[in-house]
């Protein structure tokens, strides 16, 4: 078999400076050289992937500036700071925060941030043994005893929770979770609970961080501007879902309409249910799972989140991660009995899914094992009415064919949940979009090489794609991988609104051929080999289509999840491998190449 002129994936994905690297064979030296796809999404905080450890990775941001440079930007109120102190991490990067006068000694930073936020700082007792963290706008105050790591007291109208993590050598990471519009944050050294520091006394501090979410995550150093880590805005998402073999995750633009996907205490209606945050390790690998705990009241137990609408004719996809924690059954519904699903969290099955046929139809449900006892449960339905609506979550010790089950909780049993999502106008769910106070949109992932004429066989060639796809596609012919110059000269592999995969070629504005797979989901290997008056399409080792009457179009661009001339026709796929050859591979080679 001849060498591919371009390969992307095949077990080896490379990303450099936000570019997705394909590999081409230099025709003169036969050496591999990288060819860059311009990759675009423009979303970091809305994008997640499953990393090589099988955990959900988010885009993260430290919203503070000068996060460990306390002598600039920070305002010192009757305090001084001295750098070069021994830090929690073995460095000399800690600071001594000392009082210089009586009053309200503190260090503070003004900020504009809103939603669910976690403020953290590493702290250690010096001549003072206590620290007060106080926030304004979003009102909270928490007193930490740095001698033993205890939280002495906490209060505030926007206060959610707090914790200390003992990181050794007398250091604690002190964190406060709040929910509101933050305008200022302050760290006060104190000699005792409620007793402000006096001149010459203080504490050690290091590495402050303010981030969205219910837990403090790995520290991100900032300077004059905020800094990001994890998934970045235009970073391709190499995804390890259900596999040790990575794939490029490509998705369409989607919005999570649930304004609080993790802090469920803010949901609109809470009926006979206790909601405890940070009660277990989530699929993210942090202790930010929420426990839904039905009360001992004998009756219904549920929580609702509204603030979005369903539209007649459009699908809604609801998802939430859940893990049994005493009770084995999760209930998801939209508008109670109008559309509901019941999920078995002990064996990973869907017990019931239904709709009333008046408000919803075409219902379906799915449950996906994501490891460590967690499942992602999905409920999908097509709305028949246009009205404001809501997502409801419940749990129970038994499964019944209903939107919920009336019973008396035992006071300890429930389920752990994480990452609620409702995607309107969506016939299938996409990856998790975290929200902390507002609905959030993740833009479509797209990639393109704009000048690729040298990589594309202009008179003969082969396009190969190894891809996983699923879901009921409702968009008309969105692109998986496409080769084109314009809409009149192109070929490629698309999704089809009938859920199949569509392989086609157009030259001079005239359709040369089209053919569809029979497969409507799962992994598929497809090869399109072409030459003038000679086309063959192989799928999973078998010939699907041949033609002896085609003209090959002149093409110059290679696109992923878009067309060269249109960026908006996107779909969901996981591309494991795609290759271009400048030769028409033999039918035997096509069969070998596409055999799974």
């Amino acid at each position, binding site marked *: 078999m001849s060498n591919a002129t371009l390969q992307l994936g095949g077990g080896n994905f490379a990303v450099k400076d936000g570019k997705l690297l394909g590999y081409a064979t230099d025709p003169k030296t036969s050496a591999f050289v990288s060819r860059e796809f311009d990759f675009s999404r*423009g*979303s*970091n*905080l*809305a*994008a997640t992937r499953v990393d090589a450890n099988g955990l959900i990775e988010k*885009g993260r*941001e430290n919203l503070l500036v000068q996060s460990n440079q306390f002598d600039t930007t920070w305002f010192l109120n009757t305090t001084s700071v001295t750098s070069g102190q021994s830090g929690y991490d073995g460095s000399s990067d800690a600071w001594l925060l000392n009082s210089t006068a009586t009053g*309200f000694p503190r260090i503070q930073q*003004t900020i*504009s*941030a*809103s*939603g669910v936020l976690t403020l953290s700082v590493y702290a250690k007792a010096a001549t003072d043994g206590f620290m007060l963290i106080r926030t*304004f*706008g979003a009102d909270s105050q928490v007193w930490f005893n740095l001698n033993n790591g205890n939280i002495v007291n906490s209060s505030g109208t926007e206060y959610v929770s707090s914790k200390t993590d003992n990181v050794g050598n007398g250091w604690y990471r002190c964190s406060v979770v709040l929910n509101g*519009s933050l*305008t*200022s944050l302050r760290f006060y050294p104190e000699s005792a609970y409620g007793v402000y520091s006096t001149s010459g006394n203080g504490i050690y501090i290091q590495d402050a961080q303010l981030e969205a979410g219910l837990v403090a995550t790995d520290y991100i150093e900032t300077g004059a501007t*905020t800094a*990001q880590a994890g998934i970045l*805005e235009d970073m391709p998402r190499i995804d390890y879902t259900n596999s040790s073999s990575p794939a490029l995750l490509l998705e369409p*633009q989607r*919005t999570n309409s649930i*304004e609080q996907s993790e802090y469920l205490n803010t949901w*609109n*209606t809470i*009926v006979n249910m206790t909601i405890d945050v940070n009660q277990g390790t989530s699929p993210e690998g942090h202790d930010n799972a929420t426990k839904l705990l039905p009360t001992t009241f004998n009756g*219904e137990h*549920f929580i*609702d989140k*509204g*603030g*979005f*609408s369903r539209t007649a004719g459009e699908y809604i996809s609801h998802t939430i991660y859940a893990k049994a924690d005493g009770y084995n059954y999760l209930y998801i*519904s939209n*508008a*109670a*009995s*109008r559309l509901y699903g019941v999920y078995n969290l002990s064996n990973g099955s869907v017990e019931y899914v239904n709709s009333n046929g008046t408000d919803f139809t075409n219902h379906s449900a799915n449950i996906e094992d994501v490891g460590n006892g967690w499942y992602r449960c999905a409920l999908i339905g097509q709305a028949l009415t246009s009205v*404001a609506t*809501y997502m*409801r979550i419940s749990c129970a010790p038994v499964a019944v064919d209903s*939107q*919920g089950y009336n019973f008396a909780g035992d006071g300890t049993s429930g389920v752990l949940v994480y990452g609620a999502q409702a995607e309107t106008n969506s016939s299938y769910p996409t990856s998790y*979009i*975290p929200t902390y*106070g*507002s*609905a*959030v*949109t*993740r*833009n*479509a992932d797209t990639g393109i090489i704009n000048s690729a004429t040298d990589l594309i066989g202009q008179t003969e060639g082969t396009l190969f794609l190894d891809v996983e796809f699923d879901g009921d596609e409702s968009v*008309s012919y969105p692109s998986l991988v496409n080769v084109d110059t314009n809409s009149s000269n192109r070929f490629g592999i698309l999704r089809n609104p009938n859920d199949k995969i569509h392989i086609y070629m157009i030259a001079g504005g005239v359709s040369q051929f089209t053919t569809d797979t029979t497969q409507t989901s799962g992994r598929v290997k497809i090869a399109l080999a072409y030459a003038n008056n000679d086309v063959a399409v192989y799928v999973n080792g078998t010939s699907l289509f041949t033609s002896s009457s085609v003209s090959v179009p002149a093409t110059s661009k290679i696109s992923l999840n878009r067309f060269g001339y*249109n*960026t*908006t*026709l996107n779909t969901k796929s996981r591309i494991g491998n795609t290759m271009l050859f400048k030769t028409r591979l033999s039918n035997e080679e096509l069969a070998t190449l596409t055999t799974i």
Partner: protein
Amino acid sequence: MKKVFRKYAFGSKGAATTKLNALGIDEEGQPTHNHSIVHLGNLVEVAGTYDEEGNELTAPVLSDTYSVDVMWDGEPVADWDAQMIWCPPMGVHTFGSSSAIAEWTQKCKELHPEYFPEPEELE
């Protein structure tokens, strides 16, 4: 390419659609531009209440304007400025982009400092 996030309110869905179509659509009605559009519609200003069967107890109160959020691929189109609105951060919807949120917040603070109250200095 710099991406800029802005919020807009129109008198009706039709008025919004007219403006959106003017950005460019092909013969199949698909956008030919690279901007990201999110139709928020008539926002729920007061959530409805429902009984356990999902029957409406009190109807939600909806805004009488039709809201659209746009992530511009480049600078916002000036022709849309008359419909641009500002609100305390971040309103009911945002795009999940650190750079776009930072730019929007800074601009909002310049135009509407009242949405960013200074903290009380009293203890």
